[in-house]
């Protein structure tokens, strides 16, 4: 059991570390913008996007810390418990919401900052922005889906275990 969760713990800790780095980076650019009038960030719309990005990153950090707690209790409790099922479901759903939020922010960033290709239609440029934003989100969406699968498996296992425990 320990071998299985150790790898997962390492992975979650690594993710927490990268999210903290991203938060510091975004927070730094937000502070620089607030403290000086020089254009580190070009407009107010960018300021709003950076703020939303920061909020979403904080949400991701909260989800990961919650996930870390669940992983760390796995070797002491039984895997198939209602609590674990609920935790995995909420983390999986949370990651889906986070992916959707970041996707919207990336699309807006691309629309505002990336120059449109000359001679191409608005639909083409919009499609390019949507495609670029979606391709970045696919790994996280897959991870979220796998976590939802784990949650469902835990629930199925919990039902089986309860049935088993009731049998004399």
């Amino acid at each position, binding site marked *: 059991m320990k071998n*299985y969760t150790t790898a*997962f713990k390492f992975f979650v800790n690594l993710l927490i570390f990268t999210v903290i780095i991203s938060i510091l980076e975004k927070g730094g650019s937000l502070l620089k913008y607030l403290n000086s009038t020089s254009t580190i960030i070009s407009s107010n719309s960018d300021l709003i996007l950076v703020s939303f990005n920061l909020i979403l990153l904080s949400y991701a950090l909260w989800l990961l810390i919650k996930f870390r707690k669940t992983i760390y209790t796995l070797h002491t409790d039984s895997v198939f418990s209602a609590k674990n099922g609920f935790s995995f479901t909420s983390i999986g759903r949370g990651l889906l919401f986070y992916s959707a939020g970041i996707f919207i922010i990336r699309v807006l960033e691309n629309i505002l900052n990336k120059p449109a290709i000359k001679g191409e239609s608005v639909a083409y440029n919009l499609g390019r922005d949507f495609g670029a934003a979606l391709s970045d989100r696919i790994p996280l969406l897959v*991870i979220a889906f796998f976590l939802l*699968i784990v949650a*469902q*498996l835990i629930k199925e296992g919990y039902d089986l275990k309860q049935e088993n425990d009731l*049998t004399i």
Partner: protein
Amino acid sequence: MKIFGLKSLSAFFYYIFRSISIVLLAFLTCMEFAFNTDRFTVEDGRFDMKIPLIGSSIQVDYQFSDILTITLILIFGILLLYLLSNIFKTLKKTVIFNKGIIKNLKLLTILNLIIGPVLYFLIHYPIMHKTEFRNIHNLILLIIFGMISFFLTYVFQKGFSVQSENDLTI
């Protein structure tokens, strides 16, 4: 929407992954057949190969290293998608915790945690002679998916033992 069962997300993913793996296998076979039978043209150091049925063509630098890289990546992709489709095929069944899925998950873990990184370094250094790490995120993603499948194997093993215990009870 249901995750497991006949009309569920698992069934949908099974058809998607199996279809993509078949298409990729057909593409690889077609490419290797074209190379072995000289059914391609070379212009400005790039080969041009017509893709049957679609009508379009692929153009890549005509170098052994490039062709070998494409072939290795395609084989890896086909294996990965085939294993994923097998896993989702098992999740369509009524009894989810079974030996077949554990075997497929173990193979998926080996593919992601051992074969994937070995292939990455093989392509990076001896084949393509790259010095920078611009596509390292692919390796990190492989390791992340490997860890998830490693954890899933454990959940399925536990579930299988509970299931077997349950089936033995009269």
